[in-house]
């Protein structure tokens, strides 16, 4: 799931400073689950903005609305008129939704209300942790189901480095060392011998380094 985090109010306030009427547009899927930009957070942001602008003596025409997903044209299109009625939109969707909106409403300024942070999961209520970097060439079969690309600070293919101490990463003592996790897990699975092979240099061309990625499935095309 995509994990995002609300941007500081100050930053958002600055973005929309010169606009009269602003729509705060929530997105009801990923960013709702991570409490960054669902209906509730959109309402909180709108309320905050209204108060802040009121105190500055500015227009408080901040309205809020939430759609199911801002990354699907079918969900974006029905709010055409609503968007037309405002001067700018703060989208609390992830970067995909913001771009989806910008692409659909070419003449309307669309601003990001959240920082799209990573792909991860809520490991426990209130704690969201990165799990995948979408490198395009999954090696979890080799690493006991724990991804060193996303979870090792240096994305090592042949860890752990010398900074692994008491199971933690030297970069952040609260972060478990991914390679220690891999070691422990393979040890439990009785597959430690997997770690004896040198893993070759990774093919990054499938990652973002290969440029804009896209997948075409002819069978699904209309």
């Amino acid at each position, binding site marked *: 799931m995509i994990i995002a985090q609300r941007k*500081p*109010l*100050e930053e958002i306030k600055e973005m929309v400073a010169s606009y009269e009427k602003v729509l705060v547009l929530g997105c009801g899927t990923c960013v709702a689950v991570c409490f960054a930009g669902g209906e*509730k957070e959109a*309402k*909180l942001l709108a*309320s*905050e903005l*209204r*108060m*802040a602008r*009121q*105190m*500055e*003596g500015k227009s408080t025409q901040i309205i809020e609305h939430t759609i199911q997903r801002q990354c699907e044209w079918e969900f974006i299109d029905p709010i055409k008129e609503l968007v037309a009625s405002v001067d700018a939109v703060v989208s609390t969707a992830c970067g995909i939704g913001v771009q989806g909106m910008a692409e659909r409403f070419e003449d309307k300024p669309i601003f990001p209300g959240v920082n799209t942070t990573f792909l991860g999961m809520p490991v426990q209520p209130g704690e969201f942790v990165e799990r995948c970097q979408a490198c395009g060439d999954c090696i979890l079969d080799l690493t006991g189901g724990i991804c060193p690309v996303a979870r090792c600070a240096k994305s090592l293919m042949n860890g752990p480095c010398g900074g692994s101490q008491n199971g933690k990463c030297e970069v952040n003592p609260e972060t478990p060392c991914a390679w220690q996790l891999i070691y422990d897990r393979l040890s439990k699975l009785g597959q430690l011998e997997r770690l004896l092979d040198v893993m070759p240099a990774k093919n990054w061309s499938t990652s973002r380094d290969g440029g804009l990625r896209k997948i075409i499935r002819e069978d699904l095309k209309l």
Partner: protein
Amino acid sequence: MSETAFEPEITAFVCQYCGDMAADSAGWNRISYPANVKIVRLPCTGKVDVHHILNAFEHGADGVYVVACPEGNCHHINGNLSAKRRVKYAQSLLDEVGVGGNRLEMFHVTAAQGDEFARIAAEMTERIRALGPSPVRRAMGK
């Protein structure tokens, strides 16, 4: 409005167990306290939403507080602890907005503590009086 005549307008969220009953207890014992507090009765302070708190301030509250059961004594097991966490989060948002997190507070009382309920009302009224009208209300011009 002139500063000298300022009378704080406060919204208090109370649970129907300890908070509201403590208010009733204060009444039975005729313990007086400032009349600046609007009491909003909820089934549990676990129902207090950050959205409610911001909404109160947006609509001109000078202060808001939450009166819950003592910790470990929530009728709904731990709704009061959830409320406490949310109050803390809402305080950070109010600081961010510039309204000030100190206009929001969390309290715990038992149903029998009418005196404590009155003391809290007085404490919050005094605190808000000292802080002056909420900047939002000031901007509203009311």
